[in-house]
């Protein structure tokens, strides 16, 4: 019971905090440089791991599917199947998990350390609202970066599948692309994937900035908060993925 009320009050605090962060976002259009800087450190620095992971996931998918499909003589549909898996599920979900591990943890640690070293208090005493100047740009950068990263994950995954399927296993290149073109629907598949990754971006960034801002301002407190960010956001992404999939493709 006590654990439950503890969790609920924390959730309440996190929601109030999210409200404050949202209220700070309109201000950012005047200072978009702050956001661009954060998109670099949040997004661009996660790009490498996302691309490498996307490439391998695409290649493995192609291998696995090729052997199954070849027993039905349906290897022409390889491209389409890989594309659907990536765009609908794996792109948004795996990219979000990687994002939580790479960018989310870094965000929490950075904000937590700023709190522990009194940088946030220092800003407050300079009459600068740290939620507006420090938190909101980081949150927004996460929300912007996530769909882009997921898209790049899927894109390079398809190229990986192409190199394995077409170059290595001998699937017809024309069939690979034309099946994708014919069967993958923009609204049904691509747009839904983008919506998913947008939602995941919001969730992971929210958890990351809140954990940092709310942490106990000591080395141990920051370490715990960082771990919590990765654990909570991974679980939240997986649970949310189930909900969204159920709604979108009931």
């Amino acid at each position, binding site marked *: 019971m006590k654990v439950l009320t503890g969790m609920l009050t924390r959730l309440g605090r996190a929601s109030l905090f999210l409200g404050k962060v949202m209220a700070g976002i309109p201000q950012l259009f005047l200072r978009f440089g702050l956001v661009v800087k954060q998109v670099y450190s949040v997004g661009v620095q996660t790009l490498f791991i996302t691309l490498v992971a996307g490439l391998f996931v695409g290649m493995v998918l192609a291998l696995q599917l090729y052997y199954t499909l070849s027993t039905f003589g349906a290897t022409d549909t390889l491209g389409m199947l890989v594309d659907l898996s990536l765009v609908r599920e794996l792109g948004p979900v795996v990219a979000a998990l990687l994002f939580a591990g790479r960018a989310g943890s870094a965000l929490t640690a950075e904000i937590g350390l700023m709190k522990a070293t009194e*940088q946030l208090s*220092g800003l*407050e*005493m300079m*009459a600068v609202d740290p939620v507006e100047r420090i938190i909101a740009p980081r949150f927004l950068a996460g929300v912007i970066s996530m769909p882009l990263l997921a898209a790049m994950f899927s894109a390079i995954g398809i190229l990986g599948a192409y190199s394995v399927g077409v170059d290595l296993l001998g699937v017809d290149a024309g069939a690979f692309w034309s099946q994708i073109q014919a069967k993958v629907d923009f609204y049904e598949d691509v747009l839904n994937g983008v919506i998913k990754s947008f939602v995941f971006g919001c969730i992971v960034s929210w958890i990351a900035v809140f954990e940092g801002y709310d942490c106990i301002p000591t080395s141990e407190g920051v370490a715990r908060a960082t771990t919590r960010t990765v654990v909570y956001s991974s679980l939240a992404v997986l649970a949310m993925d189930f909900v969204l999939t159920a709604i979108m493709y009931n």
Partner: protein
Amino acid sequence: MSDPLVQIHDLHFSRGDKKIFDGIDMEIRSGRITAVMGPSGTGKTTLLKLIGGQLKPDAGEIIVDGQNVHQLKRADLYRLRKKMGMLFQSGALLTDLSVFENIAYPLREHTNLNDALIRNMVLLKLQAVGLSAAHGLMPAELSGGMARRVALARALALDPMMIMYDEPFTGQDPISLGVLVKLIRETNQALKLTSILVSHDVAETLSIADDVKIISEGKVVADGTRDDIVQSESPWVRQFIDGEADGPVPFHYPGASIEQQLLQGVA
């Protein structure tokens, strides 16, 4: 006699079960340097944070420049804070900005000055703390004492009406210590500032303070002008100023005595 800039009435504040302030009354007069002294852990930093509106008292009120800090709306509180500079014990510099950008930060946030003017102002502030040549360094490349001087330059950047110094002298070599003492006194006179100075360095503090408050165990135990304090017969004051371990001010954190703890053995 000048008017009080800060008035504290019957201030109560606790951290968890620990009472930090148990009914404190204090007046900080404007245009003067007021030293707040007391043993480590009595709540001097906490007091500054209460005055700056970062912490909320359990009871009592703090009035700064005629405004009750804890009843102000956010926008008004921020307006008031622009007139209060604070030098944090740790410096609290933004670690992702250079020394120059750290001092320029409040100017960029709160003024519309052009870059050339900001540059001149920042360099002058840095010159005053002897670090104008260090403007390109990052905070991680500074020593603790240098970081505190940069933080002082930043606190002065907006030319506030009042400045709160939390342990400005800690970690300074004798030369920069002398410079800082002089700087604090001169800025206070030249800019007609009001300064609140928290420090353990009795000699330096007494050399520049106009008024002195000593707090211990949640109470103000001595309050007067520097001369009152220096000549005071009170055992509280004498112990603190002469630095003796025995006396009414406890040196040990309250709780079980060492004999009791040793006899208990390993828990």
